[in-house]
């Protein structure tokens, strides 16, 4: 009796046009997933394993003759509104493996994107718009704690500022989020470090420690202190800012694992663990079971860095995010990063990635409002990330209450990522999400740095343009300025939570 069979159908169909093909072999070289194979003897590529194609487009882009096409696999799933291919395929995968499904990138489910329901204001008549190309429109932003007012002492009839908390200067309210060496290749990480240094903004190290080659970028890096404490050394603490990672938008409540086979020599010396051991970051930080424990760690990091740098906390956007954030301010954090449920990841249980947490738009609006109710908002810098795709999303999240927007997937796209969601496999054909040094070489560091810096600059330029059309010449005057946003979506309750009026709504007197 033969064993019953089932298999996952391919998702894509790769078609090679042999009339156009010149047999150069670029496609076979490009394919890191084992789909296209180039037969050197016949000088001819062929599709060896169709189910391995992930539509990463590397072969298509590198083919000099446009001879490759990728289509959706031409097989219909029997139509069913409930049992969509997503569910059918997931069951087949689990029936085969018996394990938790792991995915990379961010939540890909078709939830509404609230950013797309928001529009902003512009100047007309009563108030001149500003031409950002001719007149200053300032985007400089400071990360750190702010006093309510300056504390001043008088010395010999002159006034002196007594004490001012450390603040890091950013040229733009846009930073790159935490991505570790290990989840990304050495070249991808170095490209982004170089770019933020050049632009004058910041990037997070992720929980990967800091390779000694990267010490030159320290003044532009936020060092992550996560549950595994990998790479947290005295040298590491000499950095622009520190961030305690409690949670990540893609997997709230979860930690992380870098399997032993990915812990190479390079990773081993950066994280301070032996080659080949699993790098396991526990779900909670085992010395933080409560807000008072968090306060202790914040104090310890402040002490260890002699109060020279800001210490912040990153949390995932969950139901109670507003109250948790106010606890974190009271625990003396200098900044808070909120990561929305669309945030990216190198690897996360798919069930968490797709279902846990709340959208960043709602989370930031409620955190901002709650901190203002508690009279705490002016003290801290609020960073928002998780699903910010464009300068317009960045602009909207600032108006909803964030000081700084954080991006992760966007700069990876600048480096070549096509969002094929295979980060967890380590086979990234673009040399980004991989520990394989051969694949990593596919990114030229100079080229990568230029691409990412261009993106950061372009977003900043668009921010300046937009602020100008709103008659605002410094970005701080736009933080939490919901007055300039309007809602244009299906659910007025959403607008209420955001604290944004509906488009066309006139200003009415407040309740009395």
């Amino acid at each position, binding site marked *: 009796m033969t064993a019953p069979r089932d298999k996952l159908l391919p998702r894509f169909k790769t078609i090679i046009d042999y009339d156009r093909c010149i047999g150069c072999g670029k496609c076979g070289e490009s394919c890191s997933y084992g789909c296209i194979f180039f037969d050197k003897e016949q000088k001819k590529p062929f599709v060896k394993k169709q189910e391995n194609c992930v539509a990463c487009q590397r072969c298509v882009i590198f083919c000099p003759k446009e001879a490759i096409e990728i289509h959706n696999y031409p097989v219909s799933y029997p139509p069913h509104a409930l049992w969509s291919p997503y569910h059918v395929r997931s069951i087949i995968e689990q029936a085969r493996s018996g394990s938790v499904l792991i995915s990379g990138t961010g939540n890909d489910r078709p939830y509404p994107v609230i950013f797309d329901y928001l529009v902003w204001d512009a*100047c007309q*008549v*009563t*108030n*001149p718009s*500003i031409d950002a190309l001719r*007149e*200053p429109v*300032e985007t*400089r932003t*400071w990360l750190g704690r*702010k*006093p*309510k*007012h*300056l504390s*001043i002492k*008088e*010395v*010999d*009839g*002159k*006034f*002196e*500022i007594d004490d*001012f908390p450390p*603040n890091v200067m950013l040229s733009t309210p846009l930073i790159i989020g935490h991505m570790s060496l290990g989840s990304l290749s050495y070249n991808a990480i170095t490209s982004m470090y170089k770019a933020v240094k050049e632009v004058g903004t910041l990037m997070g190290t992720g929980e990967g420690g800091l390779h000694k080659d990267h010490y030159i970028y320290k003044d532009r890096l936020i060092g992550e202190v996560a549950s595994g404490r990998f790479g947290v050394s005295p040298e590491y603490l000499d950095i622009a800012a520190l961030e305690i990672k409690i949670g990540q938008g893609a997997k709230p409540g979860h930690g992380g694992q870098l399997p032993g086979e990915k812990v190479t020599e390079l990773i081993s010396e950066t994280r301070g663990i032996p080659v080949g051991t699993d790098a396991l970051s526990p779900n909670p930080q085992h010395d933080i079971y409560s807000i008072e424990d968090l306060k202790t760690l914040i104090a310890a990091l402040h002490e260890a860095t002699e109060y020279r740098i800001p210490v912040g906390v990153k949390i995932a956007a969950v139901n109670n995010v507003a109250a948790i954030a106010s606890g974190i301010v009271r625990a003396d954090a200098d900044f808070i990063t909120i990561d929305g449920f669309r945030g990216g990841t190198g690897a996360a249980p798919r069930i968490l990635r797709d279902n846990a947490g709340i959208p960043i738009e709602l989370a930031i609006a409620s955190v*901002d409002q709650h901190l*203002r109710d508690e*009279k*705490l*908002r*002016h003290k801290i810098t609020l960073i928002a990330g998780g699903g910010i795709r464009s300068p317009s999303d960045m602009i909207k999240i600032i*108006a909803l209450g964030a000081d700084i927007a954080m991006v992760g997937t966007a700069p990876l796209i600048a480096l070549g990522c096509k969002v094929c969601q295979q980060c967890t496999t380590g086979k990234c054909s673009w040399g980004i999400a991989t520990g394989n040094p051969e694949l990593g070489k596919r990114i030229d560091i100079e080229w990568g740095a230029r691409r990412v810096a261009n993106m950061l600059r372009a977003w900043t330029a668009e921010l300046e343009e937009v602020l100008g059309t*709103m*008659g*605002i*010449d*410094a970005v*701080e*005057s*736009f*933080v*939490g*300025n*919901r*007055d*300039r946003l309007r809602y244009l979506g299906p659910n007025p309750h959403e607008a209420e939570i955001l604290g944004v009026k509906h488009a066309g709504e*006139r*200003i*009415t*007197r*407040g309740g*009395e």
Partner: protein
Amino acid sequence: MNTYKFTKRSNYAFRDSGACGITALFNLDLEPVSGEKIKDMICVMRERENGQGAGFSVYGLFPEYQDQYCIQLILEDIPERPPAKERVEDFLSSCTDIVKEEKVPVDSNVFREYPLVWRFFVEPKCVSGEEDDMMKNIMMYINDRIDGAFCMSGGKNMAVFKGVGWSDEIAKFYRIEDLKGYMWSFHSRFPTNTPGWWGGAHPFSILGHAVIHNGEITSYGTNVEYLRELGYTCTLMTDTEPLIYIFDYIVRKSGYPYKIALQTATMAMAPPYWRDIDRMDPILKKWVASIRITHRWAMANGPFSIVLTTNMPRPTMIGHSDRKKLRPLIAALSEDEKTFYLASELNAIHEVDNTSNYWQPDPGRPVIATEDGVMLKGSDRDIYKFAEVLK
């Protein structure tokens, strides 16, 4: 249906903004001047108003009641409720000692309909040292909670008079020629889209401060949220309201030494550009950057020219504009150096004094006059005077 004619905005009103005329005069010797003069100044700029509101502030008006706070109100009665004046009086007697009250004399021939204008001289019942905070809260409470009452001002030895009408009508209605004070500001409105309401006219006042404003604040949402944290509620739905609260917070409440408080407040509202701050010497740079970072949401963005008047702690007049000077403001000092003027247009100053020396303050730089004379002329170089007292 909106039953309020004077003390509340109409139910569907846009936030106020627009053109406007501003004028101010200050006798630096603190000698009383008749209201005639300021009236002549404002009325000449007729094309800057549209009859939707005007108002003025006077300092030195009550030499006999210098130590009491003067709560000056417009009042209207609502059907089936006790008269507004009674309700205000009940409230005031619960938290203050009313030393004197009186009807503010008005000319009944100007408007077909007009509210009752009344003033109370009060002393708050509270711990010594907290009088100002208490009076601030009393004024905010009246405006927020007592239907049919609008408190125009609540400072010492000063008052605000305002309403809907052309500037000459408002001047006539409040019989400005009978009033005398050493410092005046007068504003005429050209609101872009609201039918005016009496409380919505300028000046906006809190304690001894008053502001008149020409412009539109694009940072309104950010400023209001900041003020909410600092304990100020913006209820009047006008761009101008946050400006006076920002001024009050920084000058009075934050406890900055008087020598630097005015500079700090005006700098927070219109700070130097970062590119200029980067070029300053280290001490000044540290100060200016710290002020800018600390009070980042106090910055008033968008076009404005304003006149701030205050007598707390000393009689002071400030003319200020946005960093790009998108609204006009001109300053002048009479030939005898006894009278200081501010106006939207030079013709307003020439109307009453055509031998004065006038100048254009630089964008975003305040002109500050006190009884000691013009302290700062609104020049880019003023910052070095500020630097002299810093370390």
